[in-house]
């Protein structure tokens, strides 16, 4: 077993220091209190600031605990914020793939659609923002399940509703598929949600790797899949690239 990681111990010490007393400290104070070089302390504070565990007062330059610590575990990213940050990449994905695009986040045991871009063929379509989709039968849902141990445990305890004759209804089968999703970094589904329809999705992460949502395309199964019923490699690549671009945009602007 590897030994303790020094920088994490130091970060914990910084947080403990800020959590007691006045709660406002300058860089030198923090470095001196913990016996750290200023450069080291600065690096730790900058990283903690990036993950929003620490805030810097713009007027005094002093550090304090960040608001994110107070609601740790409730929400990592606002759904409307995610839509706003990802809108250009979702448009690009729709333009390149020729398919409709959705971005989903987990809500109340289902996929909440937080963004939707129409298939760019000018056919009549209905905006699906706010719709709920099943976790186990869609590519978006499988991505969310694959990277959230609690969610997949809850799914195992519940009955998996059959929506088509191809919907995965056996827990063991779903487990196998989720392991595969984690291995390849994307999820696919053909006619498991609706006959004739298929979908492909990939994870959106915040810095550190936590998956906060999924972006994916959906459309006619014969367009999305090859003759063997496997998702087409070009489309998979486009979806994964879009997910990576959104992930990067979340890093940039933090």
């Amino acid at each position, binding site marked *: 077993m590897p030994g303790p990681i020094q920088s994490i111990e130091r970060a914990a010490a910084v947080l403990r220091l800020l959590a007691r007393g006045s709660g406002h400290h300058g860089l030198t104070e923090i470095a001196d209190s913990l016996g750290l070089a200023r450069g080291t302390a600065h690096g730790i504070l900058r990283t903690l600031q990036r993950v929003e565990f620490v805030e810097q007062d713009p007027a005094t330059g002093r550090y304090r605990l960040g*608001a994110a610590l107070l609601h740790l575990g409730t929400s990592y990213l*606002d759904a*409307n914020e995610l*839509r*706003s940050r990802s*809108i250009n990449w979702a*448009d690009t994905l729709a*333009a390149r793939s020729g398919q409709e695009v959705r971005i989903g986040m987990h809500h109340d045991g289902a996929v909440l659609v937080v963004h939707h871009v*129409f298939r760019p063929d000018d056919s009549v379509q209905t905006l699906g923002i*706010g719709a709920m989709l099943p976790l186990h039968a869609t590519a978006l849902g499988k991505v969310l399940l694959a990277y959230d141990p609690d969610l997949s445990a809850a799914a195992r305890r519940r009955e998996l509703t059959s929506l088509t004759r191809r919907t995965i209804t056996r827990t063991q089968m779903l487990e196998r598929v989720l392991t595969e999703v984690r291995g390849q970094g994307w999820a696919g589904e053909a006619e498991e949600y609706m006959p004739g329809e298929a979908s492909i999705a990939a994870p959106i992460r915040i810095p550190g790797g936590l998956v906060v949502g999924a972006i994916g395309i959906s459309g006619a199964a014969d367009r999305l899949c090859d003759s063997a019923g496997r998702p087409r490699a070009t489309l998979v690549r486009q979806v994964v690239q879009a997910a990576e671009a959104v992930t990067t945009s979340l890093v940039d602007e933090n």
Partner: protein
Amino acid sequence: MQRFVMAIDQGTTSTRCIVFDQNARLVAVAQREHRQYHPRPGWVEQDAVEIWRNVDRIVPQALRQAGISAEQVVAMGITNQRETFVLWDRHTGVPIGRAIVWEDIRTEDLVAELGRKPGIEEVRDRCGLPLATYFSAPSLRWMLDNVAGLRAKAERGDVLFGTMDTWLIWNLTGGVNGGLHVTDVTNASRTMLMNLSTRQWDPMLLEFFGVPAVVLPEIRPSTEISGVTTRVVPGISITAALGDQHAALFGQTCFEKGSIKGTYGTGGFLLMNTGDELVRSKHGLLTTIGYQIGGEPAYALEGSIAVAGSLVQWFRDNLGLIHSAPEIETLARTVKDNGGCYIVPAFSGLFAPHWLAQARGLVVGLTSYINKGHLARAVLEATGWQTREVVDAMNADLGAPTPVLKVDGGMTADHLLMQFISDVLDIPVQRPLVAETVSLGAAYAAGLAAGYWPDLEGLRRNWHLAARWNPVMDAKYRENEYANWKRAVELTFAWARSSPST
């Protein structure tokens, strides 16, 4: 060899170079911000040389990013912040002072003075614009009056005037070595010096503002710029120029009479294509040129909303009720309606269709029931109702209701706002797949001029629907809410009247 079109978007805060392919897909983007100077309260200036240097960097950068050579660029289109202009020495190319930006209000007193001059009614008739600080002519007059020796030098023909399109085209096509001194009709239409009917500089307007004709560029149709770059990346044809909001109208393919686009950013800019009809607004809108492709222009009516996204920024930065702008929607969704609360964001007066500089903002309908969720709703609804006022004015001026609103800009990511705009207008709201409508409009105009795209129909085929919001609001509820909004707006007038004049 695959070929592309390039757009330079010279905006208020940054300059961007974007490369598009034949399907109007974005291939590369390079961008550089420039500094804003505030030498005195109310003054806003920019360094035209800095902007030119930025263009010098971003054009090669965009080509590198796209992995293409200059020969693969069939045409370049220029679009720009409107009304901002610079004066420079014709023989050295050196600017005389900094560029005066459209936001600059140094001419407030001068504008009041000019407003009392005989002939002021005639001015509005000829140029289609009300006398205001942000059009170019008052600031140009201010420069001629306040920079020592400038008027004499200008009258001798040693000085050139240009909005940012003109400045960039002159420099790109050679500068002191035979640079083209031209502008397009849409940019010229924002100076207050162009006659809308003749689309030439108007002697009466030049006389009124005291501007010597010799400083002004030649006015050309939007797609007849006909220059070739000799600097930065030599050999690229510059075929088109358009003001930014006009480019957005074109990029949204609003080619039919009666079609409207709304760009929602810091402010909101609505333009309606009125076709070959020069409509003089009776309802508080501006008359302008939409674009001119070939011989005849498409006229347009414009209604600007001063405060749209900036109200959300105010809510975030000054009230601290949200962390980021998109969170306004999350907060607004914690309540089901505005709870009877309305916010009129007349931070620096009201623009279209009221044009009341003295009006100030207000929050009305406060009760102990109102919480921050209701306020967040009132913030978003303010943009919706201001849109309704402008669209109502457009419909009244044209005499026919528009069937749909095409939207672009950052605020289109706000789902609640877009639904609300559709609800209060009672028409569908449509968002296109390409969000960069300003750059795309300039690219379209340039590509059209170069034969890269065959005709307007070809461009329209590139427009794809990304989202559509349909109205669902009950008609009675809508009219009742609109009446409440109008009463709130009237209260800002009352406040303006009761304040001591300054």
